[in-house]
């Protein structure tokens, strides 16, 4: 019997207009993360991704999609909807970064007040949209796209459209991105 080849699942749908994209739109290297704002492993990956972005500069496009695992992380859905509500005010990446940089205090009583000072946002509108779950559909859409793409936990990365099953460290990610670019 021949050994069956293992094929990593593919990203569905591919990166498109609906996505939150950081970096040059024409960049050939594309890194997609499915993440959960309350997941400590995503928190640990956050500075690594930043470092990868800094290293590759305009050669890299970074995309973030929501994958809140609410059975383990009670604050994750709220946080994902908060980032989407900030996106509605053109501040997705600011909020994305803020949530990861303050992961330890997610769900603290004064959390909203803190970011009101730091981010220039209409907090009243944001709170209202989060309370009314205006963006829950978008979060669920991301989540199910992840499930259908073979996301199995967080963080899960896709490089060049294929699931990256390697270690999410700086050097392995750079190596995988460069390899994917060469095809």
């Amino acid at each position, binding site marked *: 019997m021949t*050994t*069956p*080849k*293992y*094929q*990593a*699942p593919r990203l569905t749908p591919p990166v498109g207009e609906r996505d939150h994209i950081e970096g040059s739109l024409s960049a050939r290297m594309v890194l997609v993360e499915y993440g*959960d704002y309350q*997941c*400590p*492993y*995503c928190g640990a990956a956050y500075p690594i991704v930043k470092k990868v972005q800094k290293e590759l500069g305009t050669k890299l496009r970074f995309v973030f999609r929501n994958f809140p*695992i*609410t*059975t*383990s*992380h009670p604050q994750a859905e709220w946080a994902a909807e908060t980032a989407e509500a900030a996106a509605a005010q053109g501040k997705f990446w600011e909020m994305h970064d803020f949530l990861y940089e303050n992961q330890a205090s997610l769900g603290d009583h004064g959390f909203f007040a803190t970011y009101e000072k730091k981010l220039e946002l209409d907090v009243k509108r944001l709170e209202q949209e989060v309370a009314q779950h205006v963006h829950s559909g978008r979060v669920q859409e991301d989540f*199910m796209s992840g*499930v*259908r*793409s*073979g*996301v*199995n*936990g*967080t963080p899960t990365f896709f490089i060049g459209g294929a699931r990256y*099953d390697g270690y999410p460290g700086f050097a392995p990610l750079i190596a995988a991105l460069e390899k994917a670019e060469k095809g």
Partner: protein
Amino acid sequence: MKEFQTKNQKVSPLKAGTKAPNFTLKTTPDQHVSLRDFLGRPVVLCFYPADWSPVCSDQLGLYAQLMPEFRKFDAELLGVSVDGVWSHLAFSKDRNLNFPLLSDFDPKGAISQTYGVFAERNGESARALFVIDPKGIIRWSYLSPDGVNPGADGILSALENLKSPHRND
């Protein structure tokens, strides 16, 4: 591209088209679950190596969150590992799991072996999935490479195919 290798040649899951062997396993100290209890409904059988896997938001936590999706197919999900019922109870509570975990504990791994997914080298079940149709026939099986969590895309596709089967035979 990674080669799909299993370190144990004997790990070879029962294939699609095979009748799913019945079993009766403990799910709590005084409750048993039999596969035949679910005849008439699809069953997703998820063998996994051990409770308390250190992976964040692991496979079973993901499946717990996807129960509403599985329920759309009227499917039942059963987790199986060689852990004892007390471990299952604590693990299930800790991870908010909303489906039964079955204990393939005594004799150890017997049911995993029947399904071809007992890894003797470490005395645990392999990470393997089966989708069984309402008549008790395996329609899809999958063995995940070591250390790779298979996610749920294969399960959902297999459940969809039960509804509108591709007739190859």
